[in-house]
């Protein structure tokens, strides 16, 4: 599974997002996630990938998070 697929699975599982709406370029706003949702999402991702992630204002899309995870895994 690619990082994107794993992230998408978590979004579907934990946040009830619709799978076919999740794209690399989807923003949190498009997925209807607020700031509390994104903080929780980062926590879930850290557990899933066993990494530590710093959520910041530049991370606006699913793709931004995927890139940050890949960087942390290297």
């Amino acid at each position, binding site marked *: 599974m690619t990082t994107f697929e794993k992230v998408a699975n978590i979004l579907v599982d934990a946040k009830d997002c619709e799978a076919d709406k999740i794209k690399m370029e989807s923003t949190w706003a498009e997925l209807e996630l607020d700031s509390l949702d994104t903080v*929780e999402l980062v926590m879930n991702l850290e557990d899933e990938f066993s990494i530590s992630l710093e*959520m910041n204002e530049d991370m606006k899309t699913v793709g931004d998070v995927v890139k940050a995870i890949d960087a942390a895994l290297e």
Partner: protein
Amino acid sequence: MIKTPICEILGIEYPIFQGGMAWIADADLAAAVSNAGGLGIISAMNADGEWLRKEIRKAKSLTDKPFGVNIMLMSPHVEEVSKLVAEEKVAVVVTGAGNPSKYMKDWIKAGIKVIPVVPSTGIAKLVARNGAVAVIAEGGESGGHVGEITTMSLVPQVCDAVDIPVLAAGGIADGRGIAASFMLGAVGVQLGTRFLVAKECNVHQNYKNKILKAKDIDTMTTGKRLGHPVRALKTPFSREFLKMEYNSNVSDAELEAYGAGSLYAAAILGDEKKGSFMSGQIAAMVKKEQTAAEIIKEIFEDAEKVLRGGTKWVK
């Protein structure tokens, strides 16, 4: 006597904070609460550094006890005031309305104890990891900006989520509320609405009178559409705001503009038409003006009685 770990961590006598209240919680109120053995908190709200520095220095001149500063993360001056509290080495910073992670490192380096208000377990875990010494789990019963989850539901969940001490806020006004908070796992409380009518509180008398008169059903929340709901007394202003919120011809910008300055109008001018009289659901239980010391002494004496009687149903 009631002593919990938060007393020791902060060097305070009673495990109670007076919550930051924009335009209301100034040096006079904070110092009175700290002198009474609680933790007084100055609200930095949307003010600039100059104002805050004056208030901090004034509080230092009024009390030798520790006090805190409440930093609103939505404030346009957040960068400036965040540097200033480090320079002034205030004992405690309490944050509201957002995720304080970005600023926490500098505060902790300056020796400040950081205690964020958290509306969810996710934020609680995040700030615990970033070095918070405690968190305040604030339920939607509170006055001011509110989250969705109630105190009853939020406090035990936050207690389960983090290993640091948890304070409960929202809907607490007497000894029963304190005792209940302890039963949910909290080791301290933060009160806003009850301290609003403290004798040392400089808010406009009209505001105090409205709180003293309020009944259980007299608060409402507005502003959901803008993403930051606020709980306030039902007044001409808040009723009109709600109408505009449900009117799709009114733009978000118009709605923001209508709300701008409304807490100032209430707290400083006492304007009963244009003011937003933010208040918690507990306002009806706030019945008289007392000094901060009288409030704290009374509610902790009550809490002790309630807690001692806590086993009466255990057969």
